[in-house]
């Protein structure tokens, strides 16, 4: 099992790249531009989707929730993989920064998953006449939320930050292996019990006028996700690296300027 924790000296460049200080400084330069981009994309997408995209023939205006539901679901799932990959990098190369990214990704992912569920439920009311249906997508999302909550709970159950990091990284990896199985099973289960009801989203058949704002929203959510991830990670870096000279210098610099 030693392979898990072994690393050879040739990987040292990788460690330097993964230095929290480098990350903090670089993201500090990127953040204003990224935030601007995220804001512009989200603003454009939202106005376009809510006001200018054509109505759906069957669902009417309630369909406009798609512009929040789909990007949130997208990022909720992608976020889990980002978290798991960051955890894996941390486990394999003992990289502290990587664990910080993983730890930051968990609450963001959980919130986005919750948003996906919430918007799905609100969308369900005018469409199906009920807030909750055991639809395959929604059920999978609910399980994803449980997976996120598990990672968060495990992280904070340990007194030692390090042990919490390792434990939640392993759990995230196990979850990653399981997610495709869970999704496939739930899909199969759904077709078994409720063949052919209304499908919420059918992206390929979507009219381009509807699809373009969705694309803008998805891009906007991606940028937003990166901004949030950077912000959470930067806060975590400050907390964890408080004893280092560069953080002290940074604090002194900020209080003087």
């Amino acid at each position, binding site marked *: 099992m*030693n392979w898990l*924790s072994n690393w050879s000296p040739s990987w040292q460049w990788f460690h330097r790249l993964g230095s929290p200080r480098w990350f903090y400084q670089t993201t500090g330069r990127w953040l204003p531009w990224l935030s601007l981009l995220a804001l512009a994309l989200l603003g454009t997408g939202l106005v376009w989707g809510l006001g200018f995209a054509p109505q759906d023939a069957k669902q009417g205006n309630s369909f406009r929730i798609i512009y929040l539901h789909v990007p949130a679901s997208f990022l909720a799932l992608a976020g889990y993989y980002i978290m798991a990959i960051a955890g894996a990098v941390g486990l394999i190369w003992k990289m502290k920064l990587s664990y910080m990214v993983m730890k930051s990704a968990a609450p963001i992912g959980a919130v986005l998953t919750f948003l996906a569920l919430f918007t799905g439920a609100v969308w369900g009311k005018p469409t199906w006449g009920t807030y909750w249906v055991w639809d395959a997508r929604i059920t999978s999302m609910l399980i994803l939320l449980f997976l996120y909550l598990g990672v968060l709970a495990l992280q904070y159950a340990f007194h*030692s*930050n*390090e042990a919490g990091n390792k434990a939640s990284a392993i759990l995230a990896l196990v979850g990653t292996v399981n997610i495709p199985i869970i999704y496939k099973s739930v899909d199969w289960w759904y077709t078994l019990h409720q063949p052919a009801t209304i499908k919420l989203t059918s992206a390929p058949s979507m009219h381009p006028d509807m699809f373009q704002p969705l694309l803008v929203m998805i891009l906007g959510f991606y940028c937003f996700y990166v901004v949030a991830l950077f912000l959470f990670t930067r806060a975590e870096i400050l907390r*964890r*690296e408080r*004893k280092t000279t560069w953080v002290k210098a940074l604090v002194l610099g900020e209080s003087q300027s």
Partner: protein
Amino acid sequence: MPNTPLLSVERLQFERDDCNVFEQIDLTVDRGEIVQIEGPNGAGKTTLMRLLTTALQPTSGTISYAGQSIDLCRYEYLSDILYLGHQPGVKMTLTAEENLRWMAADSNASIQDALAAVGLAGYGDIPCYNLSAGQHRRVALARLLMTDAKLWYLDEPFTAIDKQGVSFLENCMSDHVKGGGAILLSTHQDLAIDGVRKYGISPHADQRGL
């Protein structure tokens, strides 16, 4: 390689939550040596034992066994060591005999003899939950008579045992080092054996601020 020490530890450091646990450790143990690890509570004696037995991974530094890094000869190294920790690893529901048969599975030595030597003759088939804490400790100590391990790690071995037990353990230790083995132990007690080398460890500066 007659000149390479059995165990050598170089620049060993261990961080727990970004704080070094102890000051850097450099230590060699030769065949026939008993090294007593000394240090105040919280100096990291148990942590050091766990690092040496690979239960924990060091943050930096190397541990070499007979001149070779233990990462490269893991199987060999782990087959050659014996570790007695705070919890002796005695199963309450098993009898003393069953425990020993389990703990020293690959040994040819007689379990009865070992039990007799630690003063548990006749207790062999009693479930361990009927024995006292000191007797549990003795069951674990009986392992020492049944092992071929060259390097012993004993973490506070004198806890909960009486005078007879102490002298038994001391005899056991001097026999082991006479036979070319080596022992690393942590205890606050002074041993009645000649030639025990003491090695002091101290908590790292990081620990004092907390």
